[in-house]
Every structure is written in structure tokens, then in C-alpha cells.
């Protein structure tokens, strides 16, 4: 049974793995359009990955195995997470009841090793980046979890593919406001976790202002390719959770569903690009307020769905 499912999932997984750099391209093109520029070619992120893979990695003498293991473990954690998150269809490859807990810890594991690798270099910049990443990560987790609680209560399931699957459709009809709050919170979580404006600026060259980029300054070659790809994959996965929660597709397999999901993810990338173009980044000490706001949105949504259950 599992084997059959795995075979059926091969084409879907291939698309899921190939998609992330393209979404980065959509963001870049959107930003370029707002800035009145042409922007890099559509396939530029793939070219970049190809270039990095061919290069040799350079290691600082002060680093240990943690520095080398960091990018690999982070990417492995994300790839594993990809098997738990429904991206194109309503189902996930290895989903099981309670996989939501595993997913949370996979994301945390990836983050932990990125941070440890950054601290391993002993650079004051990377230490600063690590401290910022952990601070904001710790703050965005409650927002994400409370959003999960809402969907778990609504669908009476602890399996992610069911929580954000077709069972959510009736919830939109009865508890629309709560779901809108959840989607809002998930968007903030996405911007935080994927290090986009207004939380972080992926385009800046100023090491003192960076969060994610400064942690990976010392990585090079294939390992940097893993990190770049991992960042894009993380965006795709969290984005999938967002679009699935926002637009649940009905039960059963539909030929139109996967292409539609790709378009939805593309639309999300355009939205993120538009946000990046339309506003400046927040001052670093204001970012917690944004994330706390997302947590509050999730919390209110929890109260709303719980109240409806008890009444």
C-alpha cells in the first residue's frame, strides 16, 4: 500500500522539489517590475545553484564538523518535512496522525543546526545573526502552533494533510472570521521564517542588518547551494501550508488541482514580492511586535473556534 502510494507520489515530489527556485524567481521578477527593471532571467536561481554545486567549499580553520554538518542536516530536515506537507495534492507522502509534532521539530532541528554552524565560526556577525534568528524563531513558533490548534480543532485531526485538507472547507463557511485570522497569522509566520521584508531583507549587502544571510556568510560552494535551495524549499513548504489553509480544495483527486496549486503558490510569491516592493523593512526592535501581533491573531482564532464548539 505504502509502496504504491510512494510510486504515485514520485511525479508530484519531483515537481515539488523543482518548484522552489522558480518561486524565488517570481518574487525577484515582481520586485523588478515594481522597480521599473527587467530583473534576472526566470531560470537564474537554477543557474546559481548549478554554479555553486560545481565550486569547492572553503572552510575556516576555526570551524569544526558542526559547520560542515549544518547545511546538510538543515536541508535533510526540510526534505523530510516535505514528505509530511501536502503541496500539490490534498495528501502527503508520509503523513500520519500526529505528524504535526514531527514537522515542528524538523523545522526546529534545521534551524538549530543553521544556528550552531553560524556560532561555530566564532564570527561576531554570525553570532548576532544567530541570536536574532533564534529570538524571532522562538516568537513565531507560538503563532504557527496556535494556528495549527485552530485547524486541529476544526478538523478533529492531528495529521497535517487532513488539518489543511478538504475538511477545512466547511470551517470556512461556519467560522470564516477565525480562518481569516489564521491565514493572516500564517502569512506573518511565512515572512518571518522565510526571512522576507519587513522582517529581514534578503537583498541587502549590509552584514550588520541581516538575519538569515549573515548566518550563512561563511558557507560556500555546494553547501551554500544547499542553504540557498533549503531557503527556497522552506518558503515553498510554509507557503503550501498557507495556500492550503486559505483555499481548501474539495475531496478526491482532481486533475485541475495540482496545476491550480502551482498557480496559487505563484500568486503567493507575487504577493510576497509586492509586499517587499511596497514597504520598507521594520526596525529590528519593532519586528517582535509584528510577530506578537500574529500570535494574537492566532490566539483569537483559537478562542473563536473553541467558543463555537462549547456553545
Amino acid at each position, binding site marked *: 500500500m505504502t509502496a504504491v502510494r510512494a510510486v504515485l507520489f514520485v511525479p508530484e515530489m519531483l515537481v515539488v522539489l523543482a518548484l522552489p527556485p522558480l518561486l524565488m524567481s517570481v518574487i525577484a521578477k515582481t*520586485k523588478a517590475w*515594481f*522597480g*521599473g*527593471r527587467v530583473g534576472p532571467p526566470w531560470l537564474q536561481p537554477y543557474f546559481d545553484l548549478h554554479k555553486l554545486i560545481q565550486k569547492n567549499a572553503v572552510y575556516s580553520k576555526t570551524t569544526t564538523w558542526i559547520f560542515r554538518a549544518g547545511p546538510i542536516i538543515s536541508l535533510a530536515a526540510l526534505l523530510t518535512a516535505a514528505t509530511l506537507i501536502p503541496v500539490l495534492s490534498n495528501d502527503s507522502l508520509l503523513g500520519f496522525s500526529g505528524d504535526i509534532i514531527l514537522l515542528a521539530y524538523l523545522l526546529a532541528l534545521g534551524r538549530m543546526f543553521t544556528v550552531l554552524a553560524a556560532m561555530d565560526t566564532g564570527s*561576531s*556577525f554570525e*553570532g*548576532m545573526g544567530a*541570536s536574532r534568528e533564534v529570538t524571532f524563531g522562538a516568537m513565531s513558533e507560538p503563532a504557527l502552533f496556535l494556528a495549527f490548534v485552530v485547524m486541529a480543532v476544526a478538523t478533529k485531526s492531528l495529521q497535517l494533510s487532513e488539518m489543511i485538507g478538504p475538511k477545512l472547507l466547511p470551517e470556512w463557511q461556519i467560522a470564516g472570521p477565525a480562518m481569516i485570522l489564521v491565514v493572516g497569522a500564517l502569512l506573518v509566520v511565512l515572512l518571518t521564517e522565510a526571512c522576507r*521584508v*519587513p522582517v529581514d*531583507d534578503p*537583498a*541587502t*549587502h*549590509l*552584514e*550588520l*542588518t541581516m538575519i538569515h544571510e549573515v548566518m550563512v556568510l561563511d558557507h560556500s560552494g555546494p553547501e551554500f547551494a544547499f542553504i540557498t535551495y533549503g531557503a527556497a524549499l522552506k518558503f515553498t513548504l510554509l507557503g503550501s501550508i498557507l495556500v492550503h489553509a486559505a483555499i481548501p480544495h474539495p475531496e478526491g483527486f482532481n486533475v485541475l488541482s495540482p496545476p491550480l496549486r502551482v498557480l496559487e503558490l505563484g500568486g503567493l510569491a507575487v504577493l510576497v514580492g509586492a509586499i*517587499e*516592493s*511596497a*514597504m*520598507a*523593512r*521594520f*526596525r*529590528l*526592535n*519593532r519586528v517582535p511586535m509584528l510577530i506578537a501581533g500574529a500570535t494574537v491573531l492566532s490566539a483569537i482564532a483559537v478562542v473563536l473556534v473553541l467558543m463555537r464548539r462549547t456553545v
Partner: protein
Amino acid sequence: MRQGECVDIAAIPRVESDDFSDHLQEARGRGVRLAQLFGRRTPDGGVMLYAFVANDNVGMVDVCCSQLVRSDSRPLQYPSITAHWPAAQAFEREIAEQYGVHPLGHPWLKPLRYHATDDGSPAPWGPFDRKKPIPGDYPFYRVDGEEVHEVAVGPVHAGVIEPGHFRFQCHGEEVLHLEIALGYQHRGAEPLLLHRNATRSAIVAETVAGDASVGHALAYCTALEALAGAKVSIRAHAIRGIALELERLANHVGDLGALCNDVAFLPGASFLGRLRGEFLNLTLEICGNRFGRNLLRPGGVLFDIPADLSDKLRKRLEGLQPEVLKVLDMMFEQSSVLARFEGTGVLSQEQAEEIGLVGPAARASGCMRDVRHDHAYGVYQFSHIPVAIETTGDVYARAVVRWLEVQRSLEFLLELLGNKPAGKTFEAMSPLRANSMAFGLSETWRGEAMHVAFTDDTGKLAFVKVKDPSIHNWLGLALALRGVQISDFPLCNKSFNLSYAGHDL
């Protein structure tokens, strides 16, 4: 004396070296500003100190000098001015480094550029060691404590910018103290200015700070023309004014775009970045160089702006004016941009006065000073530009001052291009007056540049001292950073946008 005047070196009032500091302290009480302080080696091995204090209210600059004599019983030393007047700090470090003079009681006597003294004598902090050629290799001010950490940035930066070393003492994200060590760009520009051929020296003057080529060339030409007693036609003055304002426009517009970039506000960064190029291209139309090189020469300007070019420039400026103002309106209406600018990197008026800040940074802290207004010379005597003032002293104020200056420079240019006086654009100068001193001031886009020139008894240029506004303002940046989030440093830095090359000479 005023700029453009020429005096006998012997006529400069002298003060005893022990009284020099007190004398300046007394002058400070009259509300003057320290514009320049430097030393010049005398043939007997001593050093003559010259101090220029500007009285901006009446457009006058007072000069005094003091002879330091070297003897076996007494090394070269005098009571420090910085001890009472922090504005002198960089100048006194420079004098100590160049001549081994010890300003007694200087609170932070460290090398400024890291080079040997002119005669190899030891500087107050010890002899120069070629084996340690790295500027800034000295004990930095340190804050100790369990939760305090030190961040060292540069001299190699992530962007393509000039080299400089920044040492932050931080408590978490908050900066407690910033110390800036420069000197990586020291090229020895001042001796190169003494070239026999004034045209060659003018080329060097333009490269003191490449983004302020016109501003430095203007100060240099004013000083030399004063020494030669040359009268430059009003037409040449007008063309100089046009070039200076175009330079200001290009840099202000570019910097406002860079400020947008630093807060990740994309449209502002893209549009203003392009518009900067448009202004540079207007300068290109005049003299064939986007930075205004080879335009100003002692005696006038090398390129005229004929009527047809004048019309063309005016048409293009008229097209650019609404475009620039529209983009700037959009930028200053964006609340997320303002949220980043407001309250970041505050420098109070008191601090600004204390350290002798100049240029837009000083005007943003409420200090009314603008060479074009206070020491009006050339075309600025006939066409006035209102001084742009803000009072909050933060990044926002520095941005607004630039914004206002963009508007006013545009209006000034349109008026001047429409009504340019007639006259010859260039006239070769007569020989320089012997044993004389003159200076030129100009309000570059960054602030006041000052070139002081001395001739010897044969009428040859013997000594030139250059001051870029950056030497005043770097300390301002360091002070503005206190208590600011370290992630806002690039933003503060850009709001000052000081020159490394101009400081290091």
C-alpha cells in the same frame, strides 16, 4: 579676512604657544566655529600652528598662528585645544602625527592616518613601525562586562565602498560606543598639490574626494586666484555654481536612494538611483565628465555653456524636476520608511556645535551654517539659496535637509541657466604673490571644504592644506550611534555618507 582675500604671511597675528589654547578658547566664547587647524614645518625644525575660526554671522574668518620651537630642553608641545574644544580633536591628532608635536592634555591622542612623521621623529604615541602597517592598530576604547560584546567591521566591507574600520562596543543589539579608525586611503594628496604646473595640481584637487570633485576644485581655485589677484568673470563663476549644484543634486538624490535601499524600500532605491545618473549626465554634457572633472581651473572654467546647451540643460532639468519631486514625495509619504528614519541616530544641536559639525548633517541638527550663505562668494553673492534647516538631528532630519536642498538647487539651476551673465570663461592667471596666504571655502554637498595655500618668497606655491568636511563629521557619526541599534548603523552611516578619501588625504 574673507575668502578670496590674500594676506602677507608675516601679517598673521601670532600668539605664544602656551597661550594658543586659551586664545582660541576665548575666541570660542565669541561664538565662532573652528574651521581649520594645522601645522606647518618651519625651516628651523619647529612647527608653526595656524588656526582658522569662522564667524559665520559676518562671513569672516579669523586667523592666528603660534610658533613652536624645538630645543633640547623642551620638545614640541603646547596645551591641547581639544581638552576644552572637542572640534579640534582630529586636527590635533593630525598635527601630532605629521610633526611629532604633543598637544598636552588631548583626551584621545591616537594616530589619525597611520604614517611616519615628516622628519622621522617619534609621534607622541611612539615611533612609527613599518612592520605594523595597519591603520587602527592601537588600543581601542573598550567597554567591559559579561554581556558586552565587541563587533569589528571593516576595513574590507561587504559592499563596494571605501575602507575604514569600525569598532562597536555593544550590549545586545544596542551600541554603547563606536570608534572609527581610518587612514587606509592615505595617498599624500597635499604634497602633490604643490606641483609647479597649476593645472596638474587642480587635477589632484579634484581627486581629494572624487564625489565632491567640483567642490574641492572650487575651494582650490578660489585660494589660488586670491594669491594671484585674478579676477574671474561672473560668467565663469556662474558655470562653477551650476556645476557645484549639479554635483549636489546627483549626490543628494543618489544618497536618498541609498537610504531607501538600506531600509529595503525598493521603488525609492530604483528610481532615485536612476535619477542620480540623469544629473551626472547633465554635468557630462557640460564638460565631458560625469563628475565634473577638468571643468574648474584656476583662472576660470575650461568649458563654456553656450546658449543652445543652456536651453538643452534647462529643458532636461524642467523634465527632471517634477519626476524627482514626485519620487521624493512618495518616499517621504511612506510611513514604513519614516518609521525607520525618525528618531534614529540623533545628534543634538549642542553636540553638533561642540564637535564643529558642518554641512547637511549640521543643518539637520539645527546649526545654521552653509558656506553658500555665510561666506557667499562668486555666483552665490548674486543668487541666494535659502539655507535648509531641520532640528531633530536624526536620520529623518538629515534626509529632509537633503530633500529641501534638492528642491532649492533645482530652482537655483533653472533660474541661473535662464539668465547667465556674459564674460570670458577663462583668463590665464598672473604669477602668485610672494610670501602670502589665501584660502578658499566651498559648500560641497557634504559640507564645508577648505583649501589654504601659502607661497614662498619667490611666489611659488609652498604649502597647501586641504580640509574635507568629513574630518569634522566622522566624530558626529560615532556620537550619533550611541544607544542606537547596531542594525541601524548602515542607515546612520548613509545619512552622513562621509568621505574616507577626503579624510585620509
